[in-house]
C-alpha cells in the first residue's frame, strides 16, 4: 500500500482499530464505562477521518474496493450516524449488564461493514461487507435484558436472522445469474456486459433477486415482515441503529445495482413502481392504528422505503440522487424520534403513545426534537422531509410517472394523521403524574445537532444535493 492508498483507507482503519480495542475491553468484566468512552472516541475519530478523506480517490485491493466521492460522502454520513447512536445510547439500561462492552463492539463492527459496503465495486467484497454489517445487528437484538413479560427480543432475533439469511440467499442466487450472464463479478464491467442482454428474462430475474437482499434491509414490501417485530423486540438503542444506518447502506448499494439496468427496462421500472406503491400503502395504513411508538416508526419506515423507491423507479441519476438525499435526511429524522424514545422510556421498556403525554412540560427540548422529527417525516417544510419528497417527486414526474407521484402525495396525506397523533400526545396532552425527564449533556447535544441537521438539510440543501449528484457520475461510469 502506498501512502496515498493508506490515507484513502483511513476511516476503515480507524474503525478496525477501534473494534480491536473494544474487543480487548470486552474480554474483561465490568468495563462498560471504558467501552463507552472507547466507542465515543472511535466514533469522533471516524468522523474526523471521513471528513479528512472526503476528496480522496483510490482503487484498492486489485480494483475490488473503490474510494471515490460517492463512497466518501456516505462514509461521512455513517460516521455521523454512528456518533449519534453512541451518544444517544447513554447507559444502555436495557442491555444485559455482562454484555454491555460487547454491545459497543457489535455496533462498531456493523458500522465498519457499512463503511466498507459503499466502497465495494466487486460483488464478492460487497457481499462480505453486507454480511459484516448485518450479522452484528442480528446479534444485537437478543442482547436486550430479559425480564418478566419481556422475552420478545428472542422471537425478534430469530425472525430477523431467518428473514435476513433467506433474503441473502435469494440475493446470492440472483447474483449467480448475473455472473453467469456476464462472466464477471466486477460491477463496472458488469454494467457494460449486461447492456446487450439487460431486457432478457434471465437478467431481469437475476436483478430482481439481487434487489431482494437490499429490499430486506430497506424493509420494502414484501420483505418488511421483520420490521415492526424487530423494532419492538430490540432495545430502543438497537432499533435506532437498525432503523437508520442500515437503511442508508441499503439505498447506497441499491444505487450500484439499479444502475446496472441500462438501457431502461420496462419490467424493472414496473417492479420498482409496484413495490413502492405497495410499501407506501401498507406502511401508512397499518401505522394508523399503532399504539407502540417503535412499531409506528417501523411501519412508517416501510412507507418511507416506498418513497425512496420512487427515486429508483425514475432510473436516472436525478432519481438516485433524490433517493440518497432522502435517505440521508431520513437518518436524521428517524434518529430524532429515537432519541426521544430512548430518553422517555424508563429502564428501556417500550414507549407507547400514552407515555409521551405532556412531554412539552416534562422536557421541552425532547418535545421540540420529537416535533421537528415527526413533522420532517410527515414532509412539512422547511424540514428535510419536504425537500426530499420534492426532489423524489420531481425526478419521478420528469420521467412521466404521474400516477406514482399522485399515489405518493395521497400517502403523504394519509400519513399526516398518525404523525399528528404523536404530536398530539407530546404537545397537547397534560402530563398527569408522569415524571419530568432530566437530560444529560450528550443527549442535549444530540438533540440540538439533529434539529440543526434536519433544518439545514431542508433549508439549504443545494450543497448536499450537488455533492451527491456529482458523486453519482462515478457510479455509472467506467
Amino acid at each position: 500500500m502506498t501512502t496515498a492508498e493508506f490515507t484513502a483507507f483511513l476511516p476503515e482503519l480507524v474503525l478496525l482499530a477501534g473494534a480491536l480495542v473494544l474487543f480487548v475491553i470486552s474480554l474483561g468484566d465490568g468495563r462498560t464505562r471504558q467501552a463507552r468512552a472507547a466507542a465515543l472516541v472511535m466514533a469522533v475519530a471516524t468522523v474526523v477521518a471521513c471528513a479528512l478523506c472526503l476528496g480522496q480517490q483510490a482503487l484498492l485491493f486489485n480494483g475490488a474496493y473503490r474510494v471515490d466521492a460517492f463512497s466518501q460522502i456516505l462514509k461521512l454520513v455513517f460516521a455521523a450516524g454512528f456518533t449519534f447512536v453512541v451518544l444517544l445510547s447513554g447507559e444502555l439500561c436495557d442491555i444485559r449488564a455482562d454484555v454491555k462492552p460487547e454491545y459497543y463492539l457489535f455496533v462498531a463492527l456493523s458500522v465498519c461493514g457499512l463503511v466498507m459496503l459503499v466502497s465495494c465495486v466487486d460483488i464478492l467484497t460487497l457481499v462480505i461487507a453486507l454480511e459484516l454489517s448485518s450479522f452484528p445487528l442480528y446479534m444485537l437484538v437478543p442482547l436486550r435484558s430479559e425480564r418478566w413479560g419481556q422475552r420478545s427480543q428472542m422471537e425478534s432475533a430469530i425472525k430477523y436472522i431467518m428473514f435476513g439469511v433467506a433474503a441473502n440467499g435469494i440475493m446470492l442466487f440472483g447474483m449467480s445469474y448475473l455472473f453467469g450472464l456476464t462472466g464477471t463479478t466486477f460491477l463496472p464491467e458488469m454494467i457494460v456486459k449486461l447492456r446487450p442482454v439487460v431486457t432478457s428474462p434471465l437478467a431481469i430475474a437475476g436483478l430482481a433477486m439481487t434487489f431482494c437482499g437490499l429490499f430486506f434491509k430497506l424493509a420494502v414490501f414484501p420483505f418488511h415482515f421483520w420490521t415492526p417485530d424487530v423494532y419492538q423486540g430490540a432495545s430502543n438503542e438497537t432499533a435506532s441503529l437498525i432503523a437508520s444506518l442500515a437503511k442508508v447502506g441499503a439505498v447506497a448499494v441499491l444505487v450500484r445495482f439499479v444502475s446496472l439496468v441500462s438501457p431502461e427496462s420496462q419490467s424493472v421500472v414496473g417492479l420498482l413502481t409496484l413495490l413502492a406503491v405497495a410499501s407506501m400503502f401498507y406502511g401508512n395504513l397499518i401505522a394508523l392504528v399503532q399504539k407502540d411508538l417503535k412499531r409506528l416508526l417501523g411501519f412508517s419506515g416501510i412507507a418511507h422505503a416506498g418513497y425512496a423507491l420512487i427515486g429508483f423507479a425514475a432510473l436516472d441519476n436525478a432519481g438516485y440522487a433524490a433517493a440518497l438525499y432522502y435517505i440521508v435526511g431520513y437518518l436524521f429524522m428517524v434518529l430524532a424520534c429515537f432519541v426521544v424514545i430512548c430518553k422517555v422510556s424508563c429502564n428501556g421498556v417500550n414507549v407507547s403513545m400514552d407515555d409521551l403525554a405532556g412531554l412539552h412540560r416534562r422536557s421541552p427540548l425532547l418535545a421540540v426534537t420529537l416535533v421537528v422529527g415527526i413533522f420532517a417525516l410527515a414532509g412539512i417544510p422547511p424540514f428535510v422531509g419536504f425537500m426530499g419528497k420534492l426532489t423524489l417527486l420531481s425526478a419521478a414526474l420528469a420521467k412521466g410517472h404521474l400516477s406514482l407521484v399522485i399515489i405518493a402525495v395521497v400517502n403523504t396525506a394519509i400519513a399526516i394523521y398518525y404523525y399528528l397523533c404523536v404530536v398530539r400526545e407530546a404537545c397537547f396532552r397534560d402530563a398527569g403524574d408522569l415524571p419530568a425527564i432530566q437530560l444529560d449533556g450528550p443527549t442535549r447535544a444530540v438533540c440540538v445537532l439533529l434539529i440543526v441537521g434536519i433544518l439545514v438539510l431542508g433549508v439549504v440543501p443545494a450543497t448536499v444535493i450537488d455533492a451527491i449528484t456529482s458523486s453519482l457520475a462515478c457510479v455509472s461510469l467506467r
Partner: protein
Amino acid sequence: MTLPSYNPDFPILSVLIFSPLVAAAVAAMIRGENLLRWWTLISTTAIAAVSLLLWGWFDATTAKFQFVEHAAWIPSLKICYTLGIDGISLLLVLMTTLIMPLCVLCSWSYITKRVKEFMICLLVMETAMVGVFCALDFILFFVFWEAMLIPMALLIGIWGGPRKIYAALKFFIYTMAGSVLLLVAIIALFLKAGSFDIRAMMGQPYGAEFQCWVFLAFFISFAIKVPMFPFHTWLPAAHVEAPTAGSVLLASILLKMGTYGFLRFSLPITPYATHVFTPYVLGLSVVAIIYGGLTALAQSDLKKLVAYSSVSHMGFATLGIFALNISGLEGATLVMINHGVTTGALFIVVGIIYERLHTRDLGETAGMGKFMPVFAGFLGIFCLSSLAFPGTNSFIGEFLVLAGGFKVSIPMVLCALPGVVIAAAYMLRMLQKVAYGHTDNPDHSRLADLNFREVVTLVPLLVFVFWIGLHPQPFVNVMHASVQHLLEQANGPLAQAAVALR
C-alpha cells in the same frame, strides 16, 4: 414627515419576512412574561412601521412586480429565492403586518400559560404569512404555505378551548390534504415551463386538458383554505376552539390566502380552465353566501356565528374573483381586506366578552352592552360594518362585487342578494341581544367596561372601517394597475377560445 427614498439594494421584503424570526429567537431567550409581551408588541409594531415604507415606495402606475429580490436557492432543482409584490399582495402584506400587533394586544391577558411559546408561534406565523404573499417562486410559496400549518396547529391545539385537539387535527389534516395535489401541479407546471418562477409560468400556452387538471389541483387546495362550500367544515371547529389571536389570524390572513391563490395562480396560469370552471365556482360562491348566512342565523355561540358569517363573506370574494371583470376583481380584493378588518375586529370583541364572562353563549351574554357603553359602541359599528352598512368598508366591497356579478349573470346576483339581507338579520340579532337585550343576567352590572389596552386594540380597526368606507380610492388606486393586468391575463387570447365554446 418625509419618507426615506427607495434604495433598490435594500431587501425590504426579506427584512419583513425574517425579522419576526429574529424576534422569535430573541423572545426564546427572554424570561418574564410581561417583558415577553412587551417585546413581541414592540417588535411587531416596528415591523408594521417598516412595512409602511412599502406603501410609500410602491409605484401604483405599473402592474410589474416590485421590490423584486432574486437569488439562487437550490440551483440543481432550479429553485430560486424570488420575492416581489404587486398591488394585490401589497395590501395583503400590509394587512398582515398591521394586524400582528393587535393580535399581541388581544392576547395580553387572555394567554396566561406558556406565554413564551405563544409569542414565538405568533412571530413564526408572521414570517410564514408575509412569505406567502411575497413569494414569486412557487416552491418558496409552497414552503411558507405549508410551514404555516405547524405554528397555527400549535396555537389552536395548545391554547384553544375544550375541543382544541380535535380542531387542531382537523385543521391540519384538511389543509395538508388539500395542498398535496398542489405540489404535484407545481412540479407538472415546472416541467412544462422550465422554471419555478411564477411569472414565467403565467401566459404559457398549456394544453386545455392540462390546464383543467392544474386548475382542479389549485382549486381543491385554495377552496379548502378560503373555505368554500362544501370544504368549509374545518373552519367553525378551528375558529371556535382557537384563542382570540388565533381566530383573528385565521379570519384576517389565512382565509385570504385561498382567494389570493385564485388571484395569483388560477387566473393567470390557467386562464382557459378558469373560464371552463367559472360557472361552477360562481354557483358554489352563491351557495356559500346563502348557506353561510343561514347557518350563522341559527348559531347561539358568538364565535360560531362570526365563523359562519366568514363563509358567507368569503363567498362574496370568490364571486367577485370569478366574475372576471374589473369591478368584480377590485371588489373581491376589497372584500378580502374588509373581511380581515371587520371579522378580525369581531373576533377580538368576542374575545373581550369571553375574558369577562367565560362564555360565548348568546343568551348568557345578553344585555352586556347596558353596562359597557364603550364596548357596545365598538360592537355596534363592527356589526354594521359586517352587514355592509353604507358608509362602512364592507359596503364598498360587496357593492363592487355585486356590480361585477351583474354584468355576468343577473339571476345569479338575484340569488346572492338575499345573502346581504340575511347578513343584516344575523348581525342585528347578535347586536340587539348583546348590546341592547333585556338582561336576565344581573351579574353583568359588575362588568368593567373596556380598558385602555382594549380600546387601543380596536381603534385602528375602527379607523380602517371608516377610511375604506368613506374614501376607498387610495386602496383601489394601488391595486388598479395590477388588477387590470390580471384581467388581461385571464381574458387573453388563450381564454377566448373557451368562452367561444360556451
